[in-house]
């Protein structure tokens, strides 16, 4: 059913290249990948933040509780004010109880560190110390020291009894947060390794989705191009119930409607042509009788009274004209019905042209420049029709001298017979162009010399018939102004492929 589309094919590579850059497929893949990335990153960021917060919270609470318990236990048998030794012992004891974390104990100007080698001052910030001193409760702060995270918990030691007043002793514990950091970092790592397959999967899904959308779109596109190229039978298969299926259904309905109205138009045109053929045919029988008896009238015209003689001659002339018109209508109907057949045989063209002119008594009125010996396989009757119509047209509408030139010319697709008929009349009216070959085309009256001319009036179909006859031979007829420029006459040029031998009539 589908014909190869002639119009769509050449443009396809360019169209495809454009598809690769800005096509639906690319857009879908990019969108899918971006959406996948955004969702992965957002989810990861939220999860990471929550997880980190939860881990740190727990670590902080545990550190504070541990320190508080240990300090409570150790501080029970600690005397205030301490000296440097007791303070150091205190710090060491606390540190022992909380897993060996560095513990700093301060009392006014005294300060003791459980691990004497550790640098603690830069990790316990002034900020924290102020908070501990003034706040009266456990405080903590995360600090970064030498690139590693630490949690510093500080608390004042209060008396257990009475008003829980401060003893002036402060304890700080420094615990390492690297394990927690590594735990949360591992989360990021696993997200990072997981995001690559997710993105790839998204791309694949995008391609699949693009495929399901693009396949019907492409089919629809091809069908549309076929329709545009003139294949009105082009349809798409409707699958599914989605929007694209709706579109396909609409396309098919449109194509149906188009095909139907096209068929209607063709039928009407065929009817109109058949009507013309039928009418001409019906006219022929009465015309046959009229033509026959008109001769009798014309023969006896001299013996009639002058008025009757004129009437008889007019009847004769007009009957002949009507016959020509009906003949021409029949002829053009045969072309329309594609019933015209070429009855071709090898023919001497110069002889044919001379005979055509002689038959119509035009030999004295037409100059000829004919190449001798040009033989081609043509339908002699049709060449005669072409010559008669072109020369008749030149005699009617142009001015003498009328020149018929026959020559051959090599052209790209082989040698051609070139027959031109030139007149010296006013040339073609500017708006005429190729319309001179239209049926019943009436040129400007200035170009018509009227029925008084003895070449008679054309049927109005002569040029159209000449062109059809040329086409039947695979040739053309061009109308142009003379080479000297407009106003120097018109030139009609017949070009026929020069076939020297071919199918003879046997």
């Amino acid at each position, binding site marked *: 059913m589908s014909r190869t589309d002639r119009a769509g094919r050449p443009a396809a590579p360019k169209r495809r290249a454009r598809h690769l850059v800005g096509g639906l497929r690319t857009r879908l893949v990019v969108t899918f990948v971006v959406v996948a990335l955004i969702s992965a990153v957002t989810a990861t960021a939220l999860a990471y933040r929550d997880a980190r917060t939860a881990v740190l919270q727990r670590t902080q609470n545990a550190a504070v509780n541990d320190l508080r318990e240990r300090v409570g236990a150790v501080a029970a048998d600690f005397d205030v004010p301490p000296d440097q030794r007791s303070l150091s012992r205190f710090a060491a004891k606390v540190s022992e109880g909380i897993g060996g974390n560095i513990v700093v104990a301060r009392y006014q100007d005294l300060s003791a560190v459980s691990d004497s080698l550790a640098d603690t001052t830069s990790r316990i910030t002034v900020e924290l110390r102020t908070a501990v001193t003034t706040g009266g409760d456990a405080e903590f702060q995360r600090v970064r020291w030498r690139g590693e995270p630490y949690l510093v918990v500080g608390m004042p030691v209060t008396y257990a009894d009475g008003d829980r007043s401060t003893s002036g002793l402060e304890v700080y514990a420094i615990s390492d947060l690297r394990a927690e950091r590594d735990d949360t970092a591992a989360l990021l790592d696993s997200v990072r390794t997981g995001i690559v397959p997710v993105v790839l999967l998204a791309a694949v899904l995008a391609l699949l989705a693009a495929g399901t959308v693009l396949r019907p779109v492409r089919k629809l596109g091809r069908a549309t191009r076929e329709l545009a190229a003139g294949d009105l039978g082009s349809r798409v298969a409707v699958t599914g119930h989605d929007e694209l299926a709706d579109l396909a259904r609409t396309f098919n309905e449109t194509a149906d409607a188009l095909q139907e109205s096209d068929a209607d138009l063709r039928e009407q045109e065929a009817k109109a042509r058949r009507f013309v053929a039928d009418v001409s*045919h019906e006219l022929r029988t*009465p015309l046959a*009788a009229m033509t026959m008896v008109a*001769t*009798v009238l014309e023969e006896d015209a001299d013996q009639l009274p002058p008025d009757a003689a004129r009437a008889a001659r007019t009847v004769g002339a007009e009957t002949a004209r009507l016959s020509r018109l009906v003949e021409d209508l029949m002829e053009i109907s045969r072309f329309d019905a594609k019933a015209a057949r070429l*009855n071709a045989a090898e023919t001497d063209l110069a002889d044919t042209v001379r005979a055509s002119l002689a038959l119509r008594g035009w030999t004295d009125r037409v100059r000829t420049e004919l190449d001798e010996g040009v033989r081609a396989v043509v339908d002699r009757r049709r060449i005669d029709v072409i010559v008669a119509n072109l020369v008749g047209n030149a005699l009617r509408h142009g001015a003498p001298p009328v020149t018929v030139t026959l020559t051959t010319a090599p052209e790209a697709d082989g040698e051609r017979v070139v027959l031109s008929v030139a007149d010296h009349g006013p040339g073609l009216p500017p708006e005429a162009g190729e319309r001179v070959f239209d049926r019943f085309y009436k040129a400007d009256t200035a170009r018509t010399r009227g029925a008084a001319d003895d070449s008679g009036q054309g049927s109005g179909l002569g040029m159209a018939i000449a062109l059809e006859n040329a086409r039947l031979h695979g040739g053309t007829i061009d109308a142009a102004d003379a080479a000297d420029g407009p106003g120097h006459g018109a030139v009609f040029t017949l070009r026929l492929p020069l076939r020297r031998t071919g199918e*003879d009539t046997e």
Partner: protein
Amino acid sequence: MPPACTSAPCTADGNGPDVPIIGPMPHVLLIEDDASVRDGMELVLRRHGYGVDTAATGEQALALLAGERGARVELAVLDLMLPGMDGFEVCRRIRARSATLPVIMLTARGDDQDIVTGLEAGADDYVVKPVTAPVLEARIRAALRRAEPSGQVQGPGADLAGLVIDRAGLTVTKHGTPVPLPPTELRLLLELSASPCRVFSREQLLESVWDHTFLGDSRLVDAAVGRLRAKLEDIPSKPRYVQTVRGFGYRFGPL
């Protein structure tokens, strides 16, 4: 055999029929269903000195030919579009009855297929309706002239590979058996065999046999050659007597 008047439309000079009628008036049978066309043709032909019989149908025409009036008919003008039996069939039956009666077809359609079929059915010539009186009359005269003795008085013709052509008596025998030929085919054979081995173009033959000066339909020649071969040749598809020279025309022999 120079034609006195050509088939080209020679305009009537206004003095009515100017053809001298020599001997008995030729008798023409008009077979045409349309009364006006038939009357018109009858009127014109009578004015030109012909005897005219008319028939409105093929059946009527065949009955007339079979009757006693049939003997005087020298030529039939036959419309192809007839009610009842069509023109082609009428033409075939006329040929079956009389091998030598010239038939001119009158075709209203001008359709190529009609012309070819009509010629195959045995018609000698055709004219396309509407036809002017001078053209019809010229065609009739040319067809009748083909049936006249040619005036070339010779003895019994030479035996051409079994074929004997008597140019005076206008008879053809093949291996002693007479071959009746309609005038057109006979003229064609006489023309070709007068110069054995000479190639005649279709145009030359149209001019010399049919009196068509120009634009005769070359299918007339091809059809007549075909009919001639069917009657003369042992194997019509491999002709010995009337041979085709592709691209040029026909020749008689070489035998």
